[in-house]
Structures are given as C-alpha cells and as structure tokens.
C-alpha cells in the first residue's frame, strides 16, 4: 500500500471511529487565510500557522464536505491501485455519479484535493491528480532529460532541440521524471506574459544574456514553480521575475518567491525564496516614463491588502506599493515598446539586471 493511500485511509478511520464512539465526526485542518500564514525560518518560505478550522457534520455543509472527502479518498485509492491518474477536472466530472456527494463546482473539488494534501502532508501528484493547465514554456541553454510515457529517457536541449515555442514543462517535474543534465546559462528570467516572453525569444535575449527564459503564464502552475525552484536549488541559478507593474503581478512574484496562500502547505516544495523582483516597478513607471493606466478601485484595494500581507513586509515592497498608491498608475511590461521593439532587450533589461548586480 502506498504512503498516500495509508495517509488517506487514516482520514476515513478517524471518521469511522468518531461515529463508532458516538462522536459527531469531524476533521481539522489549517485555516487557509492571509492571517494564518507565518514565515518558516528553516525554509525561508511562508507556511500555514496554527489556526485550525474544523469540518464537522454538525452543519449540513460540513457533513457534505465529509461525505465528499470520503468519496474522493475512495476514488484516489482505486486510482492508485489501478495505476491510473486523472485531472482535477475529471475528478469533478466523476463526482457526478456520487449522488449526494457530488460537487457543485470544480472549485470545490480542487479545494478538497488541496485539503487532502494539507491533512496527509502528501502532494497532489502522490494522489495521481494533475492540474488541467499545461506547464509553461522554457527557452535557454540547458539540457533536460525527461522520462517519456513510454519509459524512454530523452535529452532535450532547450534552445537547439525546441522550436520558438520552447520546451513545455510537464505536470510532474520531480526527479524520477525530469533531470537536469547540463547547463550553460547563468540565470533564470521568469516572465509573466506570453507577449513579452515571445519578444525576448525573438530578440534572442536568452543567448544575449545567457539566461533561461521561463514563461509564467500569469499565476504560475505548481509545476512551473517547482521547476524554477529546482533550477535555483540544484543548479544554483539566480532567479529574477519580470512582470507587469500592478498589484496582481506582485502576487505572481510573491507566489514564486514566498509561496501562495492557497498552497502554503507545500511552500517548501514550490517557493524560491532567492527569487528577486526585476520589474516593472512603480519606480520604473516614473523613471522610464512608461505609458500607464489609472488604478481601478480593485487595484487600490489589492494594493492596500498587500500592505498588510506578511509576504510584502520589507522595505522594498512597502516603498514601492506606497509609491504606486501615490501615483495611482500601473503599467504593463509591453508598455516598454513605447521606445521601440528592441528597447526592452537593449536598454531596460540590461540596465535593470546591472542594477541588481548581474554581469551581462
């Protein structure tokens, strides 16, 4: 019996024992809120604190959650025993046949899968559940060995063996699936938008700056974050993050560097505490006189919420966020095109990287 199955079975046993003892069945798990994340000194990432919530059958919604938990556990157990895997979306659709235990939205089933990770201290990959979205793209001077579904080990040079779209990060990036064979690049640049990623590729910035370019595709998938972390930890490559200049993009950086609130239980797997923020910063908006948009109401409240987010409590972020609230402006990465298509690769990035102490 796999470890994951053992751990999941413990949950079923807890509920069974509660009932057998005449207790209202319940399970406890950490509160997944901003107020319940604490800094873990050992891993230098943000993890859940000690506030717990109880899912108890005393309320109808709690009882539904417990019933669904039982069904999901049973489903995962069967899947592991049969050597299969499924997407989170498939899990949601499979629940259609579960009668009262059926999920009302995929959001509910996704969250429950995360709950199970938290309770069992296992990864969703251990449960053979994978996300819907494909991993992001990578271009750079690195050779990766991937074990394909046929069991072959295939080496891929992420410049020579791939097209302009780059190498696609698979959902499982653990060592048994993916190994780094050789690397000549000396840094990682994680880029938020596809447009900017393609611009850097077209301008051959991976070659010019000897960087591995990673496309984050907005809020990065787990596998992308895990991939970046491994590049940083195993190959000692520094990581910089290049995003739009708005509060939502800062959260993208935060999830790469410190861990996301939703996945704080596995921050030590996913977060790269050494990752640095390159821009676009509110100071950049002023310094480079970038075309900008006014902050919306939502932007402002997101910025204000970040001021109280423990992940942003350092001088750099507090200053930049306060500055942005003052100027009430935001700018996209691609606003740099104001000065021409090559400006970002010829001027902006070299200047910013130099500022951060990188040699070009």
């Amino acid at each position, binding site marked *: 019996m796999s470890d994951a199955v053992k751990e999941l079975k413990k949950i079923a046993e807890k509920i069974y024992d509660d009932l057998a003892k005449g207790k209202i069945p319940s399970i406890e798990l950490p509160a997944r809120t901003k107020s319940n994340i604490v800094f873990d000194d050992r891993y230098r990432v943000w993890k859940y604190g000690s506030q717990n919530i109880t899912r108890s059958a005393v309320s109808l919604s709690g009882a539904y959650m417990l019933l669904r938990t039982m069904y999901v556990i049973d489903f995962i157990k069967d899947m592991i025993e049969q050597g299969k895997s499924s997407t989170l979306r498939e899990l949601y659709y499979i629940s259609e046949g579960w009668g*009262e235990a059926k999920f009302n939205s995929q959001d509910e089933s996704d969250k429950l899968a995360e709950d199970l990770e938290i309770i069992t201290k296992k990864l969703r990959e251990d449960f053979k559940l994978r996300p819907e979205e494909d991993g992001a793209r990578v271009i750079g001077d690195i050779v990766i060995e991937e074990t394909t579904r046929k069991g072959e080990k295939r080496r891929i040079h992420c410049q020579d063996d791939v097209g302009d779209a780059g190498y696609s990060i698979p959902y499982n990036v653990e060592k048994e699936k993916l190994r780094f064979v050789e690397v000549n690049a000396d840094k990682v640049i994680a880029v938020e938008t596809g447009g900017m990623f393609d611009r850097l590729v077209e301008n051959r910035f991976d070659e010019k700056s000897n960087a591995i370019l990673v496309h984050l595709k907005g809020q990065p998938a787990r596998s992308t974050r895990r991939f970046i972390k491994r590049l940083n930890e195993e190959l000692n490559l520094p990581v910089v993050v290049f995003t739009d200049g708005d509060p939502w993009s800062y959260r993208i950086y935060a999830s790469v560097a410190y861990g996301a609130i939703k996945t704080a239980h596995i921050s030590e797997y996913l977060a790269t505490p050494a990752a640095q923020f390159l821009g676009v910063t509110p100071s950049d908006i002023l310094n480079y006189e970038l075309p900008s948009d006014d902050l919306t109401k939502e932007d402002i409240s997101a910025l204000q919420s970040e001021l109280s987010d423990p992940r942003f409590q350092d001088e750099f972020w507090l200053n930049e966020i306060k500055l942005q609230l003052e100027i009430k402006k935001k700018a996209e990465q691609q606003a740099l095109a104001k000065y021409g298509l090559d400006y970002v690769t010829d001027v902006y990035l070299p200047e910013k990287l130099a500022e951060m102490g990188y040699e070009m």
Partner: protein
Amino acid sequence: MPIAEELAKKQRQISIAEFFEKNKQILGFDSLTRALITCVKEAVDNSLDACEEAGILPDIFVEIEQIDGDEYRIVVEDNGPGIVKSQIPHVFGRLLYGSRFHSLKQSRGQQGIGISAAVLYSQLTTGKPAIITSKIGEGFPAHRIELIIDTKKNLPRIIKEEMVHWKKKSGTRVELFVKGKYVKNRKQSVYEYLRSTAIVNPHAHITFIEPDGNEIIFERAVDELPKQPKEIKPHPYGIELGTLLKMLKETKAKKITTFLASEFSSVSLQKARQIVAKAGIDENKEPAKISLEEAKKILETFKKVKLMAPPTDCLSPIGETLIKRGLRKETAQLSPEFISTDTRQPSVFAGTPFMVETGIVYGGNLPKEERVEILRFANRVPLLYQEGACVITEAIKNIDWRRYGLEQKGGKGIPYGPAIILVHVASVNIPFTSESKEAIANVEEIEKEIRLSLQQCARRMKTHLSKKAKKEKAKSKFLLISKILPEIARKAAEMLDKPVPPIDDVISQIMNIVWIDDEVVTKDGMAESKIKIINYKRKPQEFILYAEIPSKEYVMDVIPEPLEIRERIIKWKISLKPSEKLELSFKIKCDGIDFDENNLYVLGIDPVNIVGAEKWEGEE
C-alpha cells in the same frame, strides 16, 4: 323677452346627449378602452344584481366581437329573472330611471345611470340601437326589442320589437354596438374586470369570448348565493340638506315627529320629539310645511342628539372563506403558497354602515421584484381606475409592510414582493370620489378599518413566513441526519471493510430537538391533517400537543385517542422515548369551511426543544 327666459329656453334645450358628452369622464367613457370596459361592467353588474335578487346562481355569458376597425359588438347574457316587456324600455332607455335616493341598500349600481349610459354611448358612437332580449320564465315568450334613447326627451324609442323563441328558461341578453378598443394583458381590461369580478363573486359562473375567439371560463367556486342585503333608512348623522328637503316633500307622514321616526333609522318617536323640541319646531307641524331655515335647524340638531348607530345587518359581506376560495381559484395557475383573508365587524361613518374585507395572496409564481398587485372592490364591483386617489391605496401605503415580510422603501408606500392584496368595502352608500365610481374617498373610519383588517392578514402571513423559515432550517438538518450522515457511515465502513457503525447517538447530538412535521391533504371535500413527531433528544420527552381546528363539529377520525376535543382544539398527551416516532392524524369535513394549514402548540416542554410547533398560551 327677459334674458332669464331666453336662457331658460336654452337650458331646456341642452340635450342629454350634450350632458353625456360633457360628462364622459365621470361616466366612465373617456377613452375607447375604458368605454368598452364600462359597457361590459354596467351590463354584468346588472346581471349579477338581478340574479341575486331572484335567488338564481348567476350564469353569465360575455362576448366581444370586433365588427370593423374600432367598432365592437358586446353581448352580455344572463340566466336571471328577466324583465317584463313593458319595463324594458325604461330600464335601458332612460337615464336616472329607478334612481332611489332615500332608501339605502348595499348594491352594485347605486345611481341608475349605468346601463342606459352604455346604451346612449353605443348609439352616439355607432348610431346603432341596443338590442334587448328578455324572457321572464318557462311558458312565457321571449321579447326582442331594439331601442334608442330620444336624447331630447330622455325617453326610450322602440325601433323594432318582436317575439322570439329562446331556449333559456329565463334571462336577459343585451347587445350593444360601440366604438371601443380591446386590450389584453393590462390591468385595465375587460379580462381583468371579469377575473376580479369572479374573485369576489365565487357563486357566479362567467363565460367570456374574446374578439380573437379565445374562450375563458371563470368557474363557480361555491353553490351558495350571498345573503341578500336589506334596505335601510338613512341615519340622521349622514343626511344632507338636499336629501332632507326632498324627503320632507315626499313623505306620507302627517307630522314632523312621525316623519323623523318613520323615515330614519335609529330614531324613536321619543328621540324625534327631543330633536324637534331642541330645534324649536312644533312637533305637530306638517313635514311639507317645514321651511328651509327649520330644515337646517333640524340638521344641526341631529348632530347634537345622541343616537344609536344604524343597524348593520343590512350589509352582506362575501366572507373570509368565500374570498379565500375566489382568490384560490383565480390564482391557481400561480400556485401561491399562502392565502389569508379577513372580514371585519360592520362599522359606521357619518351614519352610514360599512364593512371591510381583505385578503392577501403570497408566494408561488407571483413576481418577486414587482409592486404588489392591488385588487380594489366596492360592493363586489372591481375598481380598475384611479388607484392613486382611493382610500384603499392610501391605507395600504400607510402600513409598514416590512414588519410583515414585504419590501417597502422607508416603510411607506405601496410594498414590493410576491403578493396580491385584495380589499373589499361594502356599504349602503359608498363614498366615491366622483360619479365614475372608481375611487373611494378618504374617509378616516374606512381607512382605519382597512388598515386593521390588512394587518390581521399580514400578521398571519408573517407567522406563516417565519414558520416556513424555521422549517427550512430544520429541513436541512433533517437532510443531514436522514441522508448525508448515514451515507458517511456507510462509505467509511465500506472503505475500511468494517460493519456500518450505529449513528443514532450522533443524530440526537446533532438534532437535539423534538421534530414535528405536518401536512394537510385535501381530497373530496375532506382535509386530512397528518402530524409526525420524532424525539431526537437523548432523553424521553413528555408534553401536551394542541392542534387548532375550525370547530369541533367538523372533526372526524382523530388518531390516536386524544385527551380531549374542545370547540377549537384537539389535545393529545405525547410521550416519546429517544429516537421514537409517533404519527397522529385527524380529518376535517370541509363543508362550507376551509382547512389548509395546521396550527400546532405544545405545553410542558421548553419551546426551544421543539421544531414545528409554538408554545401554547391558552388555558390548559
């Protein structure tokens, strides 16, 4: 010739046609749409009155046919007593004929302008005569008369008359050709008038054929005629000078005292003497010889003398049960969840007896976001126009509906929500704001009665709503313990390959109440009430359960044996072990009464431990 005489000549020449033209609005003919409604309304009101007076259950047929452009043919036919041939021209061909001015009676038409105005309108707009067919009984011939009104003389002129064969036992059929406009899906439409009429006249059967051939039937909900209202004499408190003068002139009484005692209600001979003495008039004076000054004195004295209120048995209310049935029948397609009705005791304003009845329909498919629908009635006649000027609307606006579960901005104004509010004012003399009889004047006493009555209905609605909310909450718990929890136990056992654990203990911890669930099923005139009680407490429970009943005489098959059955209540002693279930039931004969919701009460147990019943506050 003196100018005055010239003028007098002209005055005489003002024909009734001109009078009509000038007063179109107050007579209800100011627009094509309204004119069509008014014609139907006058004919149908007459038919209903005639049937009721004759003790016949009304069976009324209404057809509107579009002849050409804006010309319509209206047919209204009833199964009433018919009209004797010689009277037909007078009833249909003379304005103000039969007008009674000093006997008071709750009736639909009050002035007698009604149907003849419709005849006049039709002849003025299409030039065609009205066709009246009437038969007064089996074995009598039916007469078919075509007539117009001579507008100069205000007299009927018969164009054609013949005897015809009519299968009907008796009845009257009116055919009018009018200019009009037929509208659908509007509050002010013939359909709405008939639907409203059907609600407050559940004893009537109405068939309606629209211009497009669509047939609508408003079924009869009760086979009983309303009690015939009695005529009463005017009460001194409500009399006006003009009426008094007319009465003085026309009375057969020889002495002023006998006049007062015989022509007014609540005036005894002794009181009459007192009034005359106070007014300083000789008690033997002939009424006809009373001067204007003396009449004014009498009027003033009326107000100073303490008199009994007028008799109120002259009023004929529809009644709570019948309004409820009418509302239920006509809102059935909306499947409302709750209907409450109320009939107030008769009351008096300015010496005039009146009474108020109300009803509220709530929920079902009624629109949730819109203004509530208001149905106004005066003496069983729907009021479709001038809603804003009516005391009914005023009274509704002055209630804080938020307290009763409807939305209302600032606690004033017409409320919003899934509801229909019905108000019926019955009186021997409805104080309309104008001759068009579409709005009731703002009389304080009437406003107050409407308000009190609506509040009574609203309170019941509120009780119903909070009961429902409580049940909803309890229902979710019930789902939890009856479905979800057993499923959790089953699944856990299956996964671990262990026996299913018992969950009764957990259930009582989660519920920790005594649960009462009830329903009323009505079938074949019999309402069966079923009450289910489950003890989810961990200890045995003992208490008394009370079920409200309309009256002892309607109750049958009470199971199990109750402690006792009183006039309005059945009383059981309940004793339940933990997890024990008990089913109770009884039947109610719905013979002229309705029973559609249980009201359950408990005694001897803390009400917080009970879902589905309230605390009993009455005597034990």
